[in-house]
């Protein structure tokens, strides 16, 4: 029955890779499998299901349940098929009288300590214990009732062995009464997730699954609520609360998670139009059946009561909202946009595309700007995160994207993680990396903060370079200095793939004493010996990979850092092979896609410059309009122009710029200066407080389309329920465009993808038919690579020869001084996502109800700050208040916080400094002062007041 609901058949033990094929016969059926495969899996390949309880293909075989015993010719006894590897010529019998009798006996023992309340059990119809009882033909249990773990009480009183349910986790329930102690959950927590939060305590009859220590509950233990244990549990012992409440699902919609850039594939288990649970797909090529708390459980926001499903308009942003028809809202929006252009010129309006929406939706929004507004005023939130990645990797390698797929991590010998916190930001990738670290791969972390990855259980010693925020370029250049000075570079690779003379010039630049670790130690505070050690380890590893995050890009030298990273990889020849590469961990589900789709003001889809006459001709032909060859405004330019009175209208789809962009006051005053701000979102977000038109958006569960993840993988998003607002987001953009005179007539996103493929060389081979067939493909996907490209730059760089760009360290203008002596850096946390609009509206708030300021004990003591105190954080931009947490995870002189909660508004404090090449804001470095405070700051009170006013909605006439 489990297979009825989960179509991915469980093969019993994980797949094995081997060049050697072994032939055997199972129940008379010949079958060939890779050497090292279990008899159980070989039987499954032959289409035969061997009964099992403790085995699942999510984790390695354990051999504890003894249900899977088989008879093998020439072997003594009855071996467990899960732990017995195949051998050439083996003849296996999975069903004999002897085997049947043993299995029945084993099941009798299991059932003697299991309640028989199947009809009212939440796993009814979805229980492997139930299935196995049926499979072995269990008809009676001969044991007398005796000591057991499931009865609350017996004739003599309460049962001392009975333990009540653990309902501390908001998403799932642990019911020890139903546990058969198969250890699947413990093994999944260890092998798949790598958290080791679960154990079996006691032994014999006393064996129990325990989260953490005796005094822990699931919530207080190390559990990160990834759901792996719930997924592998064969009974109702660990089960989703939604299944307890709703019942078993009846159909599945395969789709893609809408949280981070890992892009996990999910099976939405549905009942009618209601999601019962989200289960990670085993055939998902980014996640291979794993998930994190966000994708697995935090989807309740889609039906949250605060979701707005009706269009609204208002004359002024201080007025209350008026609920109107779609017609009225679109007419209002279109006429104001046209009016702004009539009064202030063609360039007075623009769009911001969303990295949360689909490729097709993003494509249409940028098309709206280019083909309907007749300007190139389109930008996207990638401006504030990974725009330096695009610039840096395009300059050095020739492509604005990561070089490898996630599978590559399985083969890496050393991972250099820079400015990223994968266990929180990209948890499923972190689990895969941790697995590799447990297998012995090395780890170097370049981060101001002691990230959790460094404390992964059962890995070797990681190397942590706790650099001072803002000194990435100096430290990376010093590493390159060591590699060149000690001749650790890969000369053959450089001669073949790069320009040798260019290398020599770069080497001369590097060898200058100012780049030596001893000099760099003075600015970065990283001991020179640590820099040398890291450089040597990176250069020595046969296959070394680099994974980096926003701690690289969100700096005044973000683009330079990306190029310094690319240089390291080229110097050591760590490009083009599995296990190597330069891989940005992208923040949002479709930030790669939104960049690919031409969201930037200077680039058409596929990163072709708007001044390129050939590219322009393609779109002029396809769209039937004349296009501007002038790059449009970037987001910060839009704000500056707005404050100068020249930029008057903005259509912002699925992004909350007020909360996510730096220097909040600057953003809000720019928005307040516009005549027409259109916000399309699920919720009245912070930006909507400054909007005149609110167009309700649709969630990822309500639309068709594609997302592109950090490994360039184009994944399908499929509609599981009708949009509550009536339209998928691309339809709303089309309605607005047509209101402004366009004549678009798309009837399905597949038609939009067809237009993208037709006009964009790197997407030429992409179609919904291909994606349905293959599950996903990685661009470039065209005649040369019809099934996509998992690893790039294999035989040569896309740009021809790899380019070494000199990476001179220039200190940020954001410096500490007497007034602002500390450096603030920002990041995020596992349970919350970005501005929190989604996750704050789920039970995830139990893990992170508010933003917290991390501060080193010595800095706290100097200021008289105690654990949990309210503190004021002030920079030259503004100030906010939040609670302090005292920890040695941050170095003295550095403080850290997250930006998930609008009541904190961490970005009130951040400044308008930005990357020299791309204007990516310097979120990661702000000079601040921290002092004790009594509560929220004046700005927070003011903002709350405006926010309360701006969110008023007039009762509709009908009510």
């Amino acid at each position, binding site marked *: 029955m489990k297979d009825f609901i989960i179509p991915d058949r469980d093969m019993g033990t994980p797949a094995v890779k081997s060049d050697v094929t072994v032939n055997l016969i199972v129940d008379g059926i010949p079958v060939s499998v890779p050497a090292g495969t279990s008899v159980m899996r070989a039987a499954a390949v032959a289409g035969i299901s061997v009964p099992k309880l403790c085995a699942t293909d999510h984790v390695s075989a354990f051999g504890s349940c003894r249900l899977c015993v088989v008879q093998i010719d020439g072997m003594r006894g009855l071996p467990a098929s899960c732990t017995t590897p195949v051998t050439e010529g083996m003849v296996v019998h999975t069903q004999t009288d002897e085997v049947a009798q043993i299995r029945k006996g084993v099941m009798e023992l299991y059932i003697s300590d299991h309640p028989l309340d199947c009809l009212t059990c939440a796993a009814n119809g979805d229980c492997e214990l139930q299935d196995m009882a049926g499979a072995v033909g269990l008809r009676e249990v001969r044991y007398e009732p005796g000591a057991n773990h499931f009865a609350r009480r017996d004739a003599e009183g309460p049962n001392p062995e009975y333990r009540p349910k653990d309902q501390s986790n908001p998403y799932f329930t642990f019911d020890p009464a139903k546990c058969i102690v198969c250890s699947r959950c413990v093994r999944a927590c260890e092998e798949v997730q790598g*958290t*080791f*939060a*679960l*154990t*079996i*305590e*006691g*032994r014999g009859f006393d064996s129990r699954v*325990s*989260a*953490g*220590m*005796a*005094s*822990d509950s699931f919530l207080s*233990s*190390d559990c990160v609520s990834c759901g792996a244990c719930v997924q592998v549990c064969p009974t109702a012992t660990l089960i989703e609360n939604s299944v307890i409440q709703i019942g078993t699902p009846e159909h599945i919609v395969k789709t893609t998670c809408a949280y981070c850039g890992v892009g996990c594939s999910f099976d939405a288990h549905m009942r009618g139009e209601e999601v019962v649970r989200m289960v990670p797909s085993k055939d998902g090529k980014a996640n291979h059946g794993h998930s994190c708390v966000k994708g697995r459980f935090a989807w309740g926001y889609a039906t949250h009561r605060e979701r707005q499903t009706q269009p609204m308009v208002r004359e002024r942003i201080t007025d209350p909202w008026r609920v109107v028809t779609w017609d009225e809202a679109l007419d209002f929006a279109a006429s104001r946009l046209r009016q702004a252009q009539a009064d202030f010129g063609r360039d007075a309006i623009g769009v911001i595309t969303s990295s949360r929406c689909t490729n097709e939706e993003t494509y249409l929004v940028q098309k709206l700007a280019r083909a309907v507004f007749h300007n190139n005023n389109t930008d996207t939130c990638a401006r504030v995160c990974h725009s330096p990645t695009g610039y840096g990797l395009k300059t050095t390698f020739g492509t604005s994207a990561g070089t490898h797929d996630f599978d590559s991590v399985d083969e890496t010998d050393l991972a250099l993680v820079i400015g990223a916190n994968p266990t929180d930001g990209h948890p499923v990738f972190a689990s895969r990396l941790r697995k590799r670290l447990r297998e012995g791969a090395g780890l170097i972390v370049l981060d101001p903060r002691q990230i959790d990855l460094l*404390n992964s*259980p*059962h*890995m070797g010693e990681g190397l942590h370079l706790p650099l001072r925020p803002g000194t990435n370029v100096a430290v990376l250049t010093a590493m390159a200095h060591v590699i060149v000075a000690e001749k650790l570079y890969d000369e053959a690779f450089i001669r073949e793939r790069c320009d040798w003379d260019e290398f020599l010039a770069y080497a001369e630049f590097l060898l200058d004493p100012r780049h030596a670790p001893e000099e760099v130690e003075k600015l970065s505070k990283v001991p020179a010996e640590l820099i040398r050690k890291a450089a040597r380890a990176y250069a020595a590893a046969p296959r070394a990979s680099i994974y980096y995050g926003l701690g690289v890009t969100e700096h005044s030298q973000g683009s330079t850092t990306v190029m310094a990273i690319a240089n390291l990889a080229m110097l050591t020849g760590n490009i083009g092979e599995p296990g190597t590469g330069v891989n940005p961990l992208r923040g949002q589900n479709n930030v790669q896609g939104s960049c690919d789709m031409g969201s930037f003001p200077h680039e058409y889809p596929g990163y072709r410059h708007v001044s390129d006459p050939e590219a322009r001709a393609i779109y002029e032909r396809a769209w039937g309009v004349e296009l501007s060859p002038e790059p449009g405004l970037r987001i910060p330019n839009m704000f500056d122009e707005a404050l100068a009175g020249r930029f008057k209208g903005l259509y912002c789809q699925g992004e909350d710029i007020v909360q996510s962009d730096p220097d909040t006051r600057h953003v809000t005053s720019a928005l307040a200066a516009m005549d027409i701000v259109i916000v399309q979102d699920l919720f009245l977000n912070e930006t909507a407080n400054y909007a005149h038109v609110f167009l309700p958006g649709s969630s990822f569960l309500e639309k068709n389309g594609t997302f592109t993840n950090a490994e360039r993988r184009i994944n399908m998003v499929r509609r599981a329920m009708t949009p509550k607002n009536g339209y998928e987001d691309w339809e709303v953009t089309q309605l607005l465009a047509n209101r402004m005179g366009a004549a678009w007539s798309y009837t399905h996103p597949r038609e939009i993808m067809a237009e993208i493929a037709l006009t964009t060389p790197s997407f030429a081979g992409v179609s919904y038919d291909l994606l349905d067939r293959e599950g996903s493909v990685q661009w470039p996907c065209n005649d040369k690579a019809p099934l996509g490209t998992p690893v790039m730059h294999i035989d040569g760089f896309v740009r021809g020869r790899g380019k070494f760009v000199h990476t001179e360290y220039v200190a940020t203008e954001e410096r500490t001084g007497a007034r602002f002596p500390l450096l603030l850096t920002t990041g995020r946390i596992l349970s919350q996502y970005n501005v929190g609009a989604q996750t704050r509206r789920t039970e995830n708030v139990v893990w992170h109800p508010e933003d917290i300021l991390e501060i080193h004990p010595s800095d706290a003591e100097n200021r008289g700050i105690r654990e949990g105190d309210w503190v004021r954080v002030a920079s030259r931009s503004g100030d906010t208040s939040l609670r302090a947490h005292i920890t040695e995870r941050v170095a003295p002189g550095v403080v850290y916080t997250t930006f998930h909660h609008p009541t904190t508004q961490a970005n009130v404090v951040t400044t308008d400094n930005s990357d020299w090449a791309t204007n990516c804001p310097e979120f990661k470095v702000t000079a601040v002062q921290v002092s004790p405070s009594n509560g929220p700051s004046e700005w927070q009170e003011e903002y709350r007041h405006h926010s309360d006013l701006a969110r008023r909605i007039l009762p509709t006439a009908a009510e």
Partner: protein
Amino acid sequence: MTSPATDADFLLRLDEIIAAHKGREGPLLPILHDVQAEWGHVPEEAQPVLAEALGMTRAEVHGVVSFYHDFRDHPHGRHVLRLCRAEACQSMGAEALAEEVRTALGIDWHETTPDGRLTLEPVFCLGLCACAPSAQMGDRLLGRANLAKVQKLVAEAGA
């Protein structure tokens, strides 16, 4: 009973114990033995500290501690009396002896006398099957045990 974890030097002493064994292969068990020797049991507060030091998690340490009956989660009496309950001893009247001893001492299995002197524990085989039933008091073994011999042993130990 207050936990030893509230003692000022608890962490210091724990660090010393960890340092003494950390380089060994499989350091957890020798560390746990020393911890129990130091505080008479393995305080739960020690488990996260050990986990952190050994690159494990507290769940794993708890799994190990709870697996071995001889690691205790609370202090026992000053002396421990073990009575064997395995097959050979059972066939020689161990159950009846246990009943007598429990009545005489006024405590049940795993319990400690109110004066904190003696804890009674079952044990499964002391390797003295040839002279069953058997018992153990501290390091001293007792063959062909009966109530009088056990009481004498208890008295001699000053428990």
